[in-house]
């Protein structure tokens, strides 16, 4: 049943590298004394009618408020205790049990017996105030664990095989030394695949829950005369040292003034309700330590990046100022739907004015010839170009936007007798934006005016070819406002799939990061032009400075200073005129 003042129980999962011994949890337990849900038989007919008149929800709410205020007023009954990790606090039942030496059978129980004797000799426990206690990892808590393993409220819980295997694994890990497991793991690592591993434990071993240390914070909420009858789990803390994960269920909620409590109804009796809060009571690290830790971390990071720099160097190959470097990394991947079955491609890059390339020979090439299967030819031919656009040449030309290079290609087929046929022509304008581009180009091929040429192509090979392949785009010799291709008869042919990875590099002002958004080409160019004009100013200043040095001979210091002033003035003048 949900309640307005109640908090849902979730498991908190925390990751930490700090030693678990620092963990402290404070529990604040409070008995809600107000019996704010009256039992039906005690309610008079009149009162019931009254309740019907008002909305029942508001009625309960008002009672709740009065109930809690009463409880808050009476805080002497609250019990607050702080538990350290694996700190054993005995319950009243345990004190009675282990006080008698005849009940102690194991070494642990005998040790408990001694501890209890010292406690009881110091002071007799306050009967009402010792409800909170703990079970630590070494205690036998199989009954609680069994309860924990059932996720439903079913009266006849059914455990599947994974639950049983997990419980076996946990018991095994508790009693068997860890290094035996490690040895088993080592043995297992040598054999990659094991035959017939139907063992559930094998699959569970990697889970962080498998090798957890546990601690239960409990409350004995039974009355004085039957001690130990009603033990409730307030909080289960599980810790996996290997992965550094801490499971707290229910999660830590905070101090009573700030958060809603968790509720326990004793024996399902709504009049006997306890509320409790879980608080993290571990002492925080001091500011000084935090600063020291951050410093250490940054030192380690700096050391690592220094090592990296020592291996690779801090510099980066900048391209020349006033140029835009266009790096193309791509492939001609697939030729599809061509007539013939043994295809290859002949391609070249057409560089317009202002463009240059570092390696001229790689701008043209012929791929391997490849046999098709299902009308598809896998070429996988690399296209790797480093092209440079010179901005100074661009300034002289009348074009506003520079012409971009084009990849022109013809697809050819070769038959068994070594005869070639042209299968298709096409071109791709190289992408001008950075990033990855998939481009599919459809091709065409010219046919002659009479059917004879097609017959010849079919029987003995050879067919009309373009004299100038640039005709597929804008022909080189073309001038004038209109491009007419009327008069050339063609048939469509297959398609060519290409992939281009484009990386643009321009000289940027040093130390200033370029924006990460894909910039427009013109902006990029203007930035580069700005750099080049600044360089011009610097060069002018250097020239003036050299002239000044030459003229310095035979002049005294005063004249020299005057001259220097004029030189700077002229330099700034030049700069302004360029801007």
């Amino acid at each position, binding site marked *: 049943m949900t309640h307005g003042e109640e908090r849902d129980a979730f498991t908190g999962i925390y990751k930490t590298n700090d030693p678990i011994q620092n963990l402290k949890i404070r529990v604040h337990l409070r008995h809600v004394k107000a019996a704010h849900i009256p039992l039906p038989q005690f309610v008079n007919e009149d009162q019931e009618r009254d309740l019907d008149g008002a909305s029942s929800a508001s009625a309960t709410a008002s009672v709740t408020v009065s109930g809690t205020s009463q409880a808050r007023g009476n805080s002497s009954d609250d019990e607050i205790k702080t538990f350290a990790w694996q700190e054993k606090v005995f319950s009243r039942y345990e004190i009675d049990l282990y006080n008698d030496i005849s009940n102690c059978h194991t070494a642990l129980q005998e040790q408990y017996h001694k501890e209890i004797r010292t406690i009881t000799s110091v002071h007799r426990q306050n009967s009402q105030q010792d409800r909170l206690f703990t079970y630590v990892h070494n205690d036998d808590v199989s009954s609680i664990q069994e309860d924990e393993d059932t996720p439903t409220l079913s009266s006849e819980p059914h455990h599947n095989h994974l639950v049983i295997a997990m419980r076996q694994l946990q018991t095994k890990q508790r009693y068997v030394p860890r290094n035996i497991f490690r040895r088993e793991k080592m043995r297992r690592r040598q054999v990659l695949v094991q035959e017939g591993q139907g063992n559930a434990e094998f699959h569970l071993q990697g889970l962080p829950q498998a090798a957890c240390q546990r601690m239960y914070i409990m409350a004995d909420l039974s009355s004085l005369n039957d001690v130990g009858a009603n033990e409730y789990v307030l909080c289960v803390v599980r810790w996996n040292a290997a992965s550094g994960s801490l499971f707290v269920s229910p999660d830590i909620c905070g101090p009573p003034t700030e958060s809603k409590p968790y509720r326990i109804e004793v024996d399902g009796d709504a009049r006997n309700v306890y509320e409790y809060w879980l608080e993290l009571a571990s002492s925080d690290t001091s500011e000084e330590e935090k600063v020291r830790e951050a410093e250490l971390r940054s030192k380690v990071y700096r050391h690592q990046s220094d090592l990296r720099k020592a291996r*690779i160097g801090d510099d980066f190959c*900048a391209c020349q100022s006033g140029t835009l470097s266009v790096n193309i990394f791509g492939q001609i991947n697939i030729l599809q739907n061509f007539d013939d079955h043994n295809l*290859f491609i002949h391609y070249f890059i057409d560089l317009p004015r202002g463009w240059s390339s570092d390696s001229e020979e790689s701008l043209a090439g012929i791929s391997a010839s490849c046999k098709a299967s299902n009308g598809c030819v*896998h070429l*996988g031919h*690399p296209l790797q170009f480093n092209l440079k656009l010179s901005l100074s040449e661009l300034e002289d030309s009348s074009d506003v936007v520079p012409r971009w290079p084009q990849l022109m290609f013809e697809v050819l087929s070769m038959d068994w007798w070594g005869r070639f046929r042209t299968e298709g022509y096409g071109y791709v304008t190289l992408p001008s934006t950075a990033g990855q581009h998939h481009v599919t180009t459809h091709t065409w091929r010219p046919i002659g005016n009479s059917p004879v040429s097609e017959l010849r192509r079919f029987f003995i090979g050879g067919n009309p070819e373009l004299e100038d392949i640039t005709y597929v785009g804008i022909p080189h010799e073309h001038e004038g406002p209109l491009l007419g291709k009327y008069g050339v008869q063609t048939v469509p042919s297959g398609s060519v799939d290409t992939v281009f*990875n484009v*990386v643009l590099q321009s000289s940027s002002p040093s130390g200033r990061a370029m924006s990460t958004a894909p910039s427009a080409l013109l902006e990029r160019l203007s930035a580069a032009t700005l750099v080049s004009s600044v360089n011009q100013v610097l060069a002018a200043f250097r020239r003036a400075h050299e002239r000044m040095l030459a003229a310095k001979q035979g002049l005294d210091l005063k004249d020299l200073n005057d001259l220097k002033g004029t030189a700077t003035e002229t330099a700034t003048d030049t700069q302004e005129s360029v801007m």
Partner: protein
Amino acid sequence: MAELHVIGQIASASGFPSHNLFCKWGIHAGGGWRVIEGLTEGQTHVDNPSWQEAAVWCHPIDVHFATKGVQGWPKINLQIYHYDRFGRSEVYGYGFSFIPSSPGTHKVDVVTWRPIGSLTEQFKQHFLGGGAQLKSPDLVHSATDRYRLQTETMGTVHLELSVILRNFTKFGVET
């Protein structure tokens, strides 16, 4: 110094003539590039799907590069082998792809081919297996001298690559 981090997997292969495939892979980069961390070579297990068409490998790739320049962008080379029931491995395909240059996750399809020999060799290959192999696998990703190769179309290898770039914008590089 800029950095590039490739995380991904060689997911699967489809379109090959028979099953029992495995893949040898390697990532190569130009002179200005250094591997900071990660394996640049490897080999997958042999996958023999009983009814699907695609062989599934899901072989991890995780390489961290540092570089001095854009030139020589890293590329991944693949060699697909068929492991037959007599324990022999024959080449089923060569392929390569550049590592995508833009950051983000990319599905990359690598097309593969294999060299074929003369008619008699093809006849032998049909009955006995084996077949021509490349003398040096460099030819897979070099553009020069490829006209000498006579190849046939094989299947496609599917990669999933996530690319993380660092400091490239600092040096005026747009990717």
